């Protein structure tokens, strides 16, 4: 079993992020607050509560080197929090959005962050030293629906986005004064801000959870049609592969190494995908244990069990009865949909052994692949 620690923090967790030393976790318990918990001597205690947003906080990212937290919310606002002494001080970021913000991510060099929104735009925010202010630049064109997820390429310039039309797009976000033109970054680095490098029309349903592989060679994203897409050689002629899932759709994906990825979603169980030597991606296995029982409880005749059901009442919290009906109980670690998967390794490392998942059931589960011998060959 690869899950090494499970903790129930709240009734429902929207998103989470870890501190640079991985001792503290910040998450949103499906409300307008951000709770930060610290692990001290095997017990989780609440260290800080960040209260500034009016509506649910949809995205949190904790930068690894500069120790700043950026939060975005459905109230169209975003705050960058800096730890000053023992308090987290918020700085408002003028996003210039007129609809909710859905996701946020710090760029690899942490001088910019990207926000995807329901206003069909992506905001790239950077810090302007002269005014001591976070300023945003909008990528306005191209998107005709909400942007559900954003991901930075390791070169700090390319940004991949997914939207509810099922399209995945890669843009250049070069900003003069903030980014430097890297001579070996290739042709894509010559593009202007907001210029679309690539558009992928692979999914005909909503797309979520886009991520780049650690070296930036492969792009992965999931579609609501129960498929996961892997794209190699992102450029003028990309090579795309689809992997069809046997279960319910995924919501998010994380690259463990260049050749292995873990997807999480409505099946409540992380799924491992790996590429073999020829580069073909396949589904390997589920990480959590999965038991399907046809129904729990003793077997009665059907009439008797119906009478039983009426006698004890059938409530939502009760155990299920009803002989003959299969209510499949997935005995996995998460009881409800997993919405977020975050790496626990140092940022910038080429492979991850530990990662954490959080879901609608309010659990944050830490997984470790150390003991999975069959997966270690892909690391």
């Amino acid at each position, binding site marked *: 079993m690869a899950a090494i620690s499970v903790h129930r923090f709240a009734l429902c967790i929207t998103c989470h992020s870890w501190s640079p030393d991985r001792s503290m976790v910040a998450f949103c318990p499906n409300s307008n607050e951000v709770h930060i918990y610290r692990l001290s001597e095997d017990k989780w205690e609440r260290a800080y509560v960040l209260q500034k947003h009016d509506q649910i906080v*949809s995205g949190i990212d904790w930068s690894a080197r500069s120790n700043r937290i950026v939060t975005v919310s*459905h109230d169209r606002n975003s705050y960058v929090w800096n730890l000053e002494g023992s308090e987290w001080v918020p700085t408002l970021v003028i996003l210039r959005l007129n*609809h*909710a913000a859905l996701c946020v991510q710090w760029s690899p060099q942490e001088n910019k962050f990207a926000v995807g929104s329901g206003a069909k735009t992506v905001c790239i925010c950077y810090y302007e030293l002269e005014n001591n202010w976070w300023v945003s630049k909008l990528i306005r064109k191209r998107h005709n629906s909400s942007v559900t997820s954003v991901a930075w390429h390791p070169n700090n310039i390319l940004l991949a986005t997914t939207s509810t039309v099922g399209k995945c797009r890669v843009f250049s976000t070069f900003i003069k004064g903030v980014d430097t033109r890297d001579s070996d970054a290739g042709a894509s680095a010559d593009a202007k801000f907001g210029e679309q490098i690539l558009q992928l029309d692979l999914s005909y349903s909503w797309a979520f959870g886009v991520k780049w592989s650690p070296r930036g060679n492969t792009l992965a994203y999931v579609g609501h049609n129960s498929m996961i897409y892997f794209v190699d050689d992102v450029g003028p002629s990309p090579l795309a592969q689809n992997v069809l899932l046997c279960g319910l759709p995924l919501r998010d994906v994380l690259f463990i190494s260049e050749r292995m990825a873990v997807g999480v979603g409505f099946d409540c169980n992380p799924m491992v995908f790996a590429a073999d030597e020829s580069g073909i991606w396949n589904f390997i296995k589920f990480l959590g244990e999965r038991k399907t029982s046809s129904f729990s409880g003793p077997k009665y005749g059907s009439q008797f069990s119906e009478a039983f059901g009426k006698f004890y009442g059938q409530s*939502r919290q009760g155990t299920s009865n*009803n002989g003959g009906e299969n*209510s499949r109980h997935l005995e996995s670690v998460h009881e*409800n949909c997993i919405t977020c998967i975050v790496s626990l390794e140092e940022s910038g490392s080429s492979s991850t052994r530990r990662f954490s998942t959080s879901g609608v059931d309010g659990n944050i589960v830490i997984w470790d692949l150390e003991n999975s011998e069959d997966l270690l060959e892909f690391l």
Partner: protein
Amino acid sequence: MANSLRLYLTCIRSTLEAAMCLQNFPCQEVERHNKPEVELQTSPELLLNPVLICRNEAEKCLIETSINSLRISLKVKQADELENILTKKFLRFLSMRAEAFQVLRRKPVQGYDISFLITNYHCEEMQKHKLIDFIVQFMEDIDKEISELKMSVNTRGRLVAAEFLKQFI
């Protein structure tokens, strides 16, 4: 008879398991609002294809999904006038008390007898397979309830008529 009911319910159950993958999604049209997209119907990209499962001409089930909400509409079997009236009154009684059921919709969709509206908030508070169990159980129980009601109406009518006509003997 019971066999086709089992098949019908199994089909609905599998469809619901696939359809009930909902998530929180803020409104794209109105800022700071969160509305069930299946009721709003303004953004076609957020809606999935509706699925109609028919057992026969009289009984069917329409399942419409969107990114944050799911609407299930049922048409219950009504063999004669009496069942028509009984169904209408019984389901209206339930729909009027929709708050107690949480997932029930106050008015059925046009052309159907009763509708459920399940949003992502329901999926967050309650477990998905329990919700599906509830819907399927509801469908099983409705048929039984209506037949029981019909039988009791007929029985009562017979008793009352017998008592009344006794005075003429």
